[in-house]
């Protein structure tokens, strides 16, 4: 077995190990969806594979393809996910808070509550928050 073949084999096995770790992260998120008590806690579990798992799979693809062009194509995948994942998590968390889909006794501090109380007619759950879309 030549040196090049040995290196290729090691890289392939490294890529496969990264795939297994990414699959473990996904499984952890799925288990978290069942173990955590309320939607806002489940949001915490759900966001683990979104960035780290994707980065692991992207590195695995780069290791197995071993080409600069492929690496260049993979950069926007991670960049787009880095940009959009926090936005969607923020929107979902906001909707969850407004609907009261959480257990207030699990919160150490609820910094949003003071602002909600000071807003005109603002009460949880589903209080008359002034939407930015409203005039």
């Amino acid at each position: 077995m030549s040196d090049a073949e040995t290196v290729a084999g090691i890289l392939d096995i490294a890529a496969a190990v990264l795939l297994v770790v990414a699959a473990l992260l996904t499984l952890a998120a799925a288990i978290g969806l069942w173990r955590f008590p309320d939607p806002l806690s489940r949001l915490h579990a759900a966001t683990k594979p979104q960035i780290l798992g994707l980065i692991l799979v992207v590195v695995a693809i780069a290791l197995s393809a071993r080409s600069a062009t492929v690496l260049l194509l993979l950069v926007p995948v991670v960049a787009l996910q880095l940009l959009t994942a926090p936005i969607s998590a923020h929107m979902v968390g906001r909707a969850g808070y407004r609907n009261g889909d959480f257990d207030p006794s699990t919160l150490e501090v609820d910094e949003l509550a003071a602002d909600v109380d000071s807003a005109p007619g603002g009460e949880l759950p589903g209080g008359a928050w002034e939407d930015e879309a409203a005039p």
Partner: protein
Amino acid sequence: MTLLTVLWMLAGGLATVAVLLVLARIITGPTLIDRLIASDVMLTTLILVVGAEMVISGHTRTIPLMVVLAATGILGSVAVARFVSRAGAEPTGAQPDESQQTGAETALPSPEGGDDERR
């Protein structure tokens, strides 16, 4: 069976179990937010599995699919999150007359009608 095959099968099996758990959460999930979060996880898993398939089959043809999924995955969550926010405001809208009469400071130009049209 080589070590490589074992690792690939392990990754596939773990992802399969994860998807089944997430699917069960989508079906049973008590609130709409639960289902939204679970479908987000399922989309993420889909992206990861598409990438894993490329590693296992040794091709790079589905990278554009990963790009598109990563870019558009946000649209569904944001749209449904907005919808859920409005739906959540509905129960308190059950006593609109009271708030209209007492809450004179919220003299918006007929917020009820405008909101109803958008729903």
